[in-house]
């Protein structure tokens, strides 16, 4: 094929139009979502002003209208820690808001303004997205939008869907659950409570507060999936009993522990004693599986462990009704052993 500069480009543009015409869809856009979609989403995103303004805490954040009557979903933060919460809608109208409900473990808050017939995100139409999907973020980051200015729109892709719980100690947040990590810098001051949507404008996630990775000092850009918040949110709206917090139940009813395996670790004398196996009881599940004294335990399940304490903690998170995978270093070799379930015969719900 021959490149002929602008002529070709012109032809290419023409062909897009041709394609649109062929498809009989006048609103089809080449590689960006249509302005209509953006405007519709913006009209459902609000600016929230409350407490703060000292010690670098911004007195504003973002929120999402989720009912025609003016229910607003946002992130629980110090901004809401005041009796006077002001909400500014996309049309510039100002409303006084009341804090209706909060959920600390989900870091979520529900506000209500006196309104009727406002545009809102229909919670029935929330979307789940895969890694690599283009997404849009809508928020009042850095407070740049004032009055009736629409909130800012950012574009990025979903980098990963990760579990904050699986990264214990890495992020200091009460929220323990899945998040979408985004490759645009979306979690800025004021952005918390904003919307992450797909190209069709369907709500995907709620932008979280700023969060830093303790190991790398990098800021995490993320949103909490709406599907995670939905059951609690629905209960809040209906005033019904809230579902149990799914993250409270991460600890299994019958966890693994060292006595079950027959493994005895070296005395835990240091702050971070390396988890060397001191002894393995004869005939014990650990011995049968193949573990030996002087093995250095490196992984319990999927978790990297570097101290005796970490071994105990990791075991407590694993269900004794499931096989236990242990990876040890023996000399220069990495060896993996599986210890069969121990609690199997006792209880089964």
């Amino acid at each position, binding site marked *: 094929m021959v490149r002929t500069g602008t002529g070709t480009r012109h032809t*290419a543009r023409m062909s897009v139009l041709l394609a649109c015409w062929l498809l009989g869809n006048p609103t089809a856009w080449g590689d960006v979502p249509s302005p209509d979609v953006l405007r519709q989403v913006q009209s459902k995103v609000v600016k929230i002003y409350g407490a703060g303004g000292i010690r670098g805490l911004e007195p504003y954040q973002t929120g999402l209208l989720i009912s025609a009557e003016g229910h607003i979903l946002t992130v629980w933060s110090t901004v809401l820690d005041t009796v006077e919460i002001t909400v500014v809608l996309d049309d510039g109208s100002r409303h006084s808001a009341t804090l209706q409900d909060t959920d600390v473990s989900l870091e979520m808050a529900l506000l209500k303004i006196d309104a009727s017939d406002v545009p809102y995100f229909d919670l029935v139409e929330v979307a789940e997205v895969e890694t690599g999907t283009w997404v849009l973020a809508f928020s009042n980051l850095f407070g740049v939008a004032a009055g009736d200015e629409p909130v800012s729109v950012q574009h990025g892709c979903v980098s990963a869907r990760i579990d904050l719980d699986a990264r214990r100690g890495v992020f200091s947040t009460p929220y323990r659950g899945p998040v979408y990590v985004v490759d645009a810098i979306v979690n800025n001051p004021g952005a918390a409570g904003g919307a992450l949507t797909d190209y069709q404008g369907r709500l995907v996630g709620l932008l979280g507060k700023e969060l830093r990775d303790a190991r790398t000092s990098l800021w995490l850009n993320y949103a909490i999936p709406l599907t995670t918040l939905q059951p609690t949110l629905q209960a809040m709206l209906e005033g019904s009993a809230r579902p149990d917090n799914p993250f409270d139940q991460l600890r299994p009813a019958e966890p693994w522990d060292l006595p079950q395996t027959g493994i005895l670790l070296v005395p835990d004398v240091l702050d971070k004693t390396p988890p060397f196996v001191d002894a393995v009881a004869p005939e014990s599940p650990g011995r049968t599986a193949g573990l030996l004294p002087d093995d250095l335990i490196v992984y319990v399940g999927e978790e990297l462990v570097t101290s005796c304490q970490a071994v105990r903690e990791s075991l407590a998170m694993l269900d004794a009704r499931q096989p236990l995978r242990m990876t040890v270093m023996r000399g220069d070799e990495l060896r993996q052993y599986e210890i069969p379930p121990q609690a199997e015969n006792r209880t089964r719900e």
Partner: protein
Amino acid sequence: MKQAELLSRESISHLEIDRMQFSPNRRKPFEIVLSASAMHGLLPLLAACLASLANPLYGQNLTPLEQEAIRAAVQEADASVVRLEPVGITTAREGVGLSLAPSTALVVSAEGHLISTTFGIPEDAGQVVAIFADGTRTIAAEVARDHSRRLVLWKTESESPLPVLPVANPSEVHVGEWAIAVGRTYSASHPSISVGIVSALNRVWGMALQTDAKVSPVNYGGPLLDIEGRVLGILAPLMPEGTDDLDAVRRYDAGVGFAVPMWQVRELLSRLQKGEDLHAGVLGIALVGRNPFGPVVIGACQAGSPAALAGLRQGDRIVAAEGQPIRFRSDFLYQLRPKYAGEELRLTVEREGEQIEIVATLVEELPPYERPYLGILPDLAANVESGVPVRYVFPGSPAQAAGIEPGSVILQADGQDITSVESLLAYVRSQWVGAKVTFRVERSDAESMEVEITLQGLPQELSLQPPPLLPEPVEGEAAEVATGRINPSLPEHPQTCLGYVPEAYDPRLPLGVMLWLAEGTSEQEREALLAAWQPVCDEFQTMLLVPSPEDGQDWSLEDAEYLQKLIEQTTQRYEIDSRRVVAVGSRKTAALAFRWAAASGGAVGGVVLLEAPLPATLVIPPASPESDLSLLLVASPASNTARPLIQTKQRLREKKHPVAVLTTRGTPLDPEEADREAVLRWIDALSRI
């Protein structure tokens, strides 16, 4: 075909069209959605539209096509992107914790070789575990390291052949095409991705591609893929002028990321697989000036360096390197920086109107620079038409052995006319210890002779030999600048300074400067200091400056800028002999005095430490032609043999800094008069050649 396997089943229909019509260049259908500038033609678009017609999934727009392609590329790469977990390191640097943070590596051979970056993998990393997409864990053993491009080659034992991804064709890679950064640090089971475009080619002196996909510790070591899943490069913590991995990390959200081109990595593999560690090649020259668009002229050529051994000389203008014309400094860096130690660099230089071809073999590290020494003090005050008159000849020096006497005038070195102290100094510095130089010398008996002198290294205890002669004050008009007590101030700095200028100051005889970093001293104490040192300052034509820090109490690195400006201002007002400028530090200010002096770029010639060993954590830079510091350690008899002081002396001498020790009978902070004189005599001797 690969692409068909690569994409999911739904998308096969349009791929079929793609293949029928547009093979072999099959990137086109995806490119059209990039931007107008990347659109190439009508046919691929029509193909996409037809595909959309054929498959209602794509009825809305073209976005799903690129989404699908991105997902497919990542899916294909998944099995080749490996997570590395160092098992049991606990190092942390400058607040950025590196402890146990996982990183990413890419499979580069079916036999189990992986490439990662050096980020978070110190050389003493200990055991590192590689975790594959399917959950397999195995030990990764380090094979070799490329310190220049910051890569590490690993070997893992694998029962089955590992999947190696195809490499992009360098001639097809262009700015604006999709670039997908893949890492495996968030989770062992799923890769993380960031999508951007190729922002530039040939960055970091030709060693990197630039992308606006987010490149950070999250994906260092992972691949940068094109839209068809071919590897463009290895994401790496590179920066054009960065010296440290962390320089790059600080920019992780700035829209600038780099990847070492995969075709370069592939060429390196055979060397790395042999266990050969690679280092950036060093030539050993300094260029004249800092103008990036000025001519590329050699300002200094370190003795014993590849440049010197190959015959490069001060004043040579580099006009070509590796056959490429060199106009600017950056042209030259593009040729030099990608080279490794042990490789050759072909240069064409212009010398006295002639073009000379030179081939230098680069090295990993230059031999420590040792300043060559003739053994004279020039007479700074003497008034001669040309040449350098000799004020003093050090006993046992090469100059003395050759019969040079006080009053002799050095006229030529190796046939070059010596017109000033600077020109003699520059010539001697361009030589090396052991070099033979023929000097033409005019003796006081008016007899001109040629002598061949073998230069020696600087003696350590230089100053404490029999006292050199003091310069005779020059008779003449009184200076027009302030002498006696002065209070220099800098308008933009709050720091204050007390000072003393010898009453007999004459601009024709340059002054030495003692810049005393007193700690927490009151006004009275500073006055007492000035009063005590005033007589010896008069005697040895040296100015004393006693500044106080910004907060009045403790010195900090922020004060270094003030010190630099203070010296600059002093040099503008008075004639100063920069080699006789010394910083004086005591316990709390020793580190600052040394760091500032070492970084002053030749504005400071010495450091006096008053019973103050240097902190063990302080990095001591090696002596270099641009900056060589002499040190005087003033100690009490008790501390003279103390371990920290001896260690400081050894560490400085290892880096070829001359160190003298003065044991004082008074206290080091307030030495007796004879010892004050000895300090000034040492400063006087810093103008030695």
